[in-house]
């Protein structure tokens, strides 16, 4: 099982049942913020007269996981991207790096945490669906196997090409994500980040990062080598071979 969710924007009525269920399932403080915050992991966005639920996309290759220096963000075997507050050092690189700008930080606390949707990791690993999908009254958010959902999304577009734009957001974005969106308008119009998204972001830095051991050793060998040559020249440069032999004998 590779869990994921399909969010069909044509079906969302903006009732916020999902955000409230999210609060409950994850034991978050009950007050609801209008935008994503460290304690509100799922919000309803209203755009062009439409509603949609916004939360972590759970990338196949998450940038937040790649940039975290201590590995507090983890891509689990199952699929959800989870956060370990007991490892996090609070550098906020994940907030900066996420292509969807999802992780949020607890600014007004001296012992802060980062908050974002963890795809109800506990429930999902116990074989249950996510809280938000289980309460959605219209089926706008459905939970299931990612591959099945992708097939379902393609089928919906195929059956209703006039209703949907021919784009499944999350199929290729950031190298593929567990959450998929279907929309009746272009995703750019709805406020989704669509520019330069079809690439695997962690690959950008890893291309350079993986060369570090090489660069490191070459610099070291080169510098020590240069030092050896230059100092040797300094010491023996104006000496004849015989004199050098003599000097080395007395060392």
């Amino acid at each position, binding site marked *: 099982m590779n869990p994921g969710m399909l969010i069909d924007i044509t079906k969302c009525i903006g009732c916020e049942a999902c955000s409230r269920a999210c609060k409950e399932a994850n034991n978050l403080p009950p007050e609801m913020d209008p935008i994503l915050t460290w304690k509100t992991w799922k919000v309803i966005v209203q755009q062009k007269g439409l509603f949609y639920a916004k939360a972590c996309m759970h990338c196949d290759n998450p940038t937040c996981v790649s940039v975290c220096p201590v*590995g507090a963000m983890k891509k689990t075997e199952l699929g959800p991207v989870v956060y370990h507050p007991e*490892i*996090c050092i609070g*550098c906020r690189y994940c907030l900066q790096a996420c292509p969807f*700008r999802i992780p949020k930080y607890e600014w007004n606390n001296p012992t802060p945490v980062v908050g974002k949707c963890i795809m109800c990791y506990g429930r999902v690993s116990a074989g249950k669906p996510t809280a938000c999908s289980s309460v959605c009254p219209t089926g706008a958010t459905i939970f299931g196997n990612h591959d099945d959902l992708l097939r379902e999304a393609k089928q919906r577009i195929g059956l209703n090409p006039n209703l949907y734009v021919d784009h499944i957001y999350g199929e290729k974005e950031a190298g593929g994500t567990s959450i998929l969106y279907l929309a009746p308008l272009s995703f750019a119009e709805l406020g989704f980040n669509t520019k330069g998204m079809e690439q695997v972001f962690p690959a950008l830095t890893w291309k350079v*990062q993986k060369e570090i051991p090489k660069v490191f050793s070459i610099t070291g060998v080169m510098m020590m080598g*240069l030092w050896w040559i230059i100092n040797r020249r300094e010491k023996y440069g104006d000496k004849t071979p015989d004199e050098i032999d003599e000097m080395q004998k007395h060392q």
Partner: protein
Amino acid sequence: MAEIKLGNIFKITFWKVVAIGFGLVSAYVAYIRYFRGLGYATHLNDQFPWGFWIGFDVISGVGLAAGGFTITALVYIFNIKKFKPIVRSVVLTAFLGYVLVIVGLMFDLGKWYYVWHAIFYWNEHSVMLEVAWCVMLYTTVLLLEFSLTVFERMKWDKLVKLHHWLTPLLVTLGVMFSTLHQSSLGS
């Protein structure tokens, strides 16, 4: 060199008043940061998670330190003796630059009390881990490079001798860490 008289330290001058005022304001801000949170102290938010001072840290702290590895490499590896007189001040400046960066980090990291996690929890895909290690190790190298002055002053001749023997290695390590650190800052 002008002699330092104890009485002069307590003489009040304009710039001392400015410095004390600045220190008091900073202490208040530090208090808010550590007891109420980063948000109250800096007004950073989820849209702007990093402050401008990171740029300041990088330009002043790490930038100052760039002189450290270039000058020591010129003198000890390339044997350009012309620069030897400034080596010690350059090393000290570089060390202070890195200390500035570390002190800054202790304010900037949300969970500064977990800063040691960078030593035990590795994510080798993270550019920040590389930076963290370069800062740790280069600061250590700079401290060791500067320790010669202390050893000489204390007349610990054996340590001085060992230090002279190790200098090329330290300088090389300095170049290695700095190459990685200064280059990784771009990302």
